[in-house]
C-alpha cells in the first residue's frame, strides 16, 4: 500500500520525494500558488501555498509529504492568511486591474477573486517603476512584478539566455534586465522565449496585443483559477 497523509481530513496518497502540493494536486486537491510552476523546482517566495501541518505554517510547494501528516489547507484561518498575503502583494506594486491588459489572464487577480479578497487593507507603497518599452516585441511593465522569478528561471534554465534577475532586497527588491544599458532591447530575448511567456501577472507582455481578446472571455473570466490550475498542469 502506498503512503498517505490527510489533506483537510481526506487521505491523499503520495510517493517519496513529492511535495504536499504535488501530491495534493495529483489527488485532485488544489492549493493556491503563484511562484510555483510544475516545470520548475519550488521557489518558496510567495507563500500563497501555505498550509498548516502540526500547528506550523509551511510552504506546501517546498515541503515533502510525510506519512500520516495532517494538512489543513482550505480553512478560514489559512485562507485568511493567503488573503493577507495577496493584499500585501497588491500594495507592494502598482496593480490597477481595470486598465491592465492582463486582466482576466492574471493569476494574482484570479487568486484575489478566488480567495474573496474584497478590498484593500494596507497602505499603498506606490513604488516608482517605469516601463521598459525598448524591445520591439515585448513590453516590460515593472509595476506589476511579484518577484516570483519564473522569468528568471525560465530564461536561465530553459531559454539559456539569462535575461532577467532580481536585485536588492526587501522593499527595494526589483526585477532587472541583464544588459549593460539595463534595456530589454539590448538582450537577446525573443518574443517566443519561455521567459517572455511565463509571467503570471502583467509584467512581461507581447506588444500590440492589448485588449484584442475581450475582457470577460479570458481564462479566469470564464473559469475560476482553482479549476483552471487543475486542468492544464499549471
Amino acid at each position: 500500500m502506498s503512503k498517505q497523509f490527510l489533506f483537510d481530513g481526506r487521505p491523499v496518497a503520495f510517493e517519496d520525494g513529492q511535495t504536499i502540493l504535488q501530491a495534493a494536486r495529483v489527488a485532485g486537491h488544489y492549493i493556491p500558488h503563484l511562484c510555483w510552476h510544475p516545470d520548475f523546482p519550488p521557489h518558496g517566495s510567495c507563500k500563497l501555498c501555505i498550509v498548516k501541518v502540526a500547528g506550523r505554517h509551511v510552504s506546501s510547494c517546498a515541503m515533502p509529504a510525510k506519512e500520516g501528516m495532517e494538512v489543513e489547507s482550505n480553512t478560514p484561518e489559512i485562507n485568511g492568511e493567503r488573503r493577507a498575503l495577496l493584499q500585501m502583494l497588491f500594495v507592494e506594486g502598482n496593480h490597477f486591474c481595470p486598465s491592465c491588459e492582463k486582466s482576466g489572464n492574471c493569476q494574482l487577480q484570479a487568486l484575489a477573486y478566488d480567495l474573496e479578497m474584497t478590498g484593500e487593507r494596507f497602505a499603498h507603497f506606490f513604488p516608482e517603476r517605469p516601463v521598459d518599452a525598448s524591445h520591439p516585441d515585448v513590453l516590460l511593465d515593472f509595476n506589476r512584478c511579484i518577484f516570483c522569478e519564473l522569468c528568471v528561471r525560465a530564461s536561465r534554465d530553459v531559454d539559456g539566455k539569462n535575461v532577467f534577475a532580481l536585485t536588492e532586497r526587501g522593499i527595494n527588491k526589483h526585477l532587472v534586465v541583464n544588459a549593460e544599458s539595463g534595456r530589454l532591447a539590448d538582450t537577446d530575448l525573443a518574443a517566443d522565449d519561455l521567459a517572455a511567456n511565463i509571467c503570471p501577472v502583467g509584467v512581461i507582455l507581447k506588444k500590440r496585443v492589448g485588449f484584442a481578446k475581450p475582457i470577460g472571455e479570458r481564462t479566469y473570466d470564464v473559469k475560476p483559477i482553482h479549476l483552471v490550475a487543475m486542468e492544464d498542469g499549471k
Partner: protein
Amino acid sequence: MTAELETAEGRETLRKVAIDPVSRIEGHGRVTLLIDDDDQVCEARLHIVEFRGFEVFIQGRPYWEVPVMVQRLCGICPVSHHLAASKALDRVVGAVPPSPAAIQLRRLMHYGQILQSHALHFFHLSSPDMLFGFEAELGKRNIVGVAEAYPDVARQGVLLRKFGQEVIRATAGKRIHGTGAVPGGMNRHLSLADRDALRADADQMVAWSQAAVELVKRLHRADPGLYDVFGVFRSGLASLVRADGAMDLYDGVLRFRDGDGGIILDQVPDQNYRQVLQEDVKSWSYMKFPYLMERGPDLGWYKVGPLARVQNCDFIPSPLAEIERREFIDHGKGDVIHAPLAYHWARMIEMLHAAEVIRDLLDDPACTAGELMAQGTRGKEGVGIIEAPRGTLIHHYQVGDDDLVTMCNLIVSTTHNNQAMNTAVREVAKRYLSGRKLTEGLLNHIEVAIRAFDPCLSCATHALGQMPLVVELAAANGEVIDRVVRD
C-alpha cells in the same frame, strides 16, 4: 451681455456666496457669487476642477491600454472616451478607415451611450425641476417625486436608460468599462442573441423617446416666458457634422457657427482641430476656456452639446427626429435658439435620433459578422473627435516608435462649454438674484442653469438630489460670515 460680471470692481469689499457643491453635480463644481451690501451680484464664477492630471498619467503608457484607461475619466460617459481614444489611435495603427463592421459596432455602442446618458439626464436629473418647478420643495424635486406624480414618465425613463446600457453591454462587453473598441477596430461582434433581444425592444424605445420629446415640448410651450428666456445669452455653436451636413455623433468634420447662425468654419477635418481651436487660461479657474482662434477669446467661444448640434447640422438622418428638428427650428422663428433650457428639448430630439439609429443598426449585418480589425501604415499621431452626450470631445495622442504615448491632449465637452456655463450663471445671477434675499429656490435657479448644459460632473449616484448643498456667505477676503448646509 454680462461679461462685466466676471471680475467685479473693488471685489475685496464684497461678500461672497458659494454654492458648493452644486447639488446633483458631483463634488467638483463650485459657484461663487460676490455680493455687495445691497445684495447686488457683482461677480459670478463657476469653478470646475478639471482632470488634467490624467494626461500626464497616460504619457508613458503603451497606446493599446489607452482606450480602456481613459474610461476612468468620467463616471457617466466612459464609452465616449473609450471611442474617442480608439478613433485617435486608429491613426497610429494605420486603420484608416477601420473595417465596416468595426465602424458600425462602434456607432451602435456610441448611440447606446447617447441614449442612456440623455435618458439619465432628462428623467433623473432634470425632469424633477421641469415637472415641479425650480422653486418646488426639495423633497419632491427628485426622481422619487416624479415616480409618484408621473409614474409612466419615470418608468419609461428607467427603461430607456436600461436599454441604452444593454446596447453598451452587448457591444463593449460590459455595461461600464468594457473593452469592445481597440486601436484598429473592435474585439467582438454583436451576438445574435443580444441582437434579437435588443431588436425586440427597439420600436418601443423609439416610441417612448418620441413621447419624451412631446413632454419637453409641452413643458416648453406651456411656459415660454421661462423656457425661452431663462439664462439666455448668445454664443457661437460648435459640433461635428457629417460631410454632407447631416447630424453625426460618431464621426465627421467640425463646423462652427456664430451666434446668429452664420457658418464661420465648415468641413474642418478632425485631425486639424489645433489649427482652429485654442485654449485660454484664466487665473481663477482650473478649467481652460477654448475658443475659435480666428475670432479670439472674447468672441470665439461657443456652445457644444445637443442645443448646438441640433442647430448646427443641416438635417438629422432619421425621419422622426428630423421632423422634431424642424419643429424645433421653427420655434426659433428664424433665429438661433440660445435658451439654456432648450438644451432639454434638443437633448430629447437626439435621444429619439439615437433610438432610431440603434433600431436600424441592429438590422445591419456588419454588426454580427465581418472583419473586425484593420491595419495599415503605422502613424505617430492621431486625433479622435466624437460628439459625446454633452458635446464635442477631443482626444489627441502622439506615440513613439517604442509604442508608448508621448503626448496626450484632451478637450472634454464640459471644457468647451466652460465659458457658456459661466455666462449662463452670470445671466441667471443678474436677473434672478440681484437685489433679492437669497433663498433656496433662487440658488436652485443657478443650478438649473448649469445643469441644462449637463456638465459631466452630473453623477448618477446623486440622482435623488440628496447631495448636500453648502451655501457660504463670505466676505471677499475669505472670511465666512454665514453658512447654510442643505441636506
